[in-house]
């Protein structure tokens, strides 16, 4: 398995991230059945309860849906929503870094906003 389980990030979060990655890469497609917690346990050599927790995260974000007695399936708009979420997260983080760096360099709020507007115009 090409995922390396590292020691500090909780395993169930790594499983949730791996599943999202599989959805983005189209290896798990819309309305396709996903792995059961037992298959994930076997695949990653982890406790099935931990694998179940990873699936629950996606279920709670409605990236997966349940069919009674059949298991869990990929939500129709799952890929789109994961991409959207990632974009927002990355942008928020970059914005934070810009604001922090501006503070360190003693750039005022007005100067920073002007800089951003100028950058936008330059790229338009």
């Amino acid at each position, binding site marked *: 398995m090409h995922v390396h*389980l590292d*020691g*500090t*990030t*909780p*395993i*169930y979060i790594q499983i949730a991230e791996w599943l999202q990655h599989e959805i983005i890469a189209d290896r798990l497609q819309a309305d396709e059945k996903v792995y059961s917690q*037992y298959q994930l*346990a*076997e695949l*990653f*050599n*982890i*406790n*099935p*309860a*931990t694998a179940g*927790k990873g699936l629950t995260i996606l279920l709670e974000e409605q990236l997966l849906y349940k069919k009674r007695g059949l298991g869990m399936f990929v939500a129709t708009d799952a890929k789109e929503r994961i991409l959207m979420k990632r974009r927002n997260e990355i942008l928020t983080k970059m914005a*934070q870094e810009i604001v*922090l760096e501006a503070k360190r360099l003693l750039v005022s709020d007005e100067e920073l906003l002007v800089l951003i507007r100028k950058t936008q115009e330059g790229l338009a």
Partner: protein
Amino acid sequence: MNIIQCEELSKSFGRRHALQRVTCAIDAEKIIGIIGRNGAGKSTLLNIFAGYIKPTTGSCKVFNENPFNNIQTAANMIFIDDRLSFSDYLSLEDILKMGADFYPNWQNELAYRMLDYAGIDLTAKHQQLSKGQLATFNLVYGLVSRCALTILDEPMNGMDEVIRTDFYRAILKEYLAFPRTFLITSHHLQEMESILEEILLMDEGSVIAHAPLDEFKEQLISLSGPSDALADLLSETEVYAQKIMAGMTSAIIDASKLFVSEEILRAKGITVSSLNASEVCKYLTSKKGSDIDAIFD
């Protein structure tokens, strides 16, 4: 559903208190790691669960009955440790045959396949085996008996690293095929951590934590950053360990007592990182301020 319930369990050997008022419950069909330093009381607790020794005070119920000298416990429980011994006159094959007669869920064919994989000769006698082979045979015996309560006390002691990794996987696969309760002790938490559902941490004869693995790990976090930025934060919380070097401090604290968001901390140059399970065990069980360096001063 609980398969073990103990209340206010204490055990003394002469003046030594091996267990002190332990109250805990073990659910059915979970893999649970029993962790603790040497002398923490792990083996004593497991021996009481197995019905091998009697508690001094308090009560212990296994499958709803007192386990001591109890045939129901004996038939549904297996206890594997390095003291497990069999008659000198029997070959390994004969020992397996006896197991098959006693345990109703016994998997003889699986035993043959696992021992063949490990390169252990079935015509050998138990005490002719090397230390690592002995541990492997005993663990195979424990796995194929498929007992509702399977207790493995340091099952990988003496095995080489390759076979240890293989047999942790074997435990997981056996559990998936036939769910049952596993209680496993080990001094190498890191190598078995991924297959565990819960951790039960013991220290000085008491159970000091019993939780799902992730919850257990998340109870402590590590903060590091400029000492002056951290000073206020640390004065308001319990600090498990602290290192100061060239104006930078790193400290281990209780995660539930941190009320400041990660963004605010980051703005002050403080980074937050999580710990792995064995680090959490180390900080929860080491005496405050104890340090190997101190004895050389």
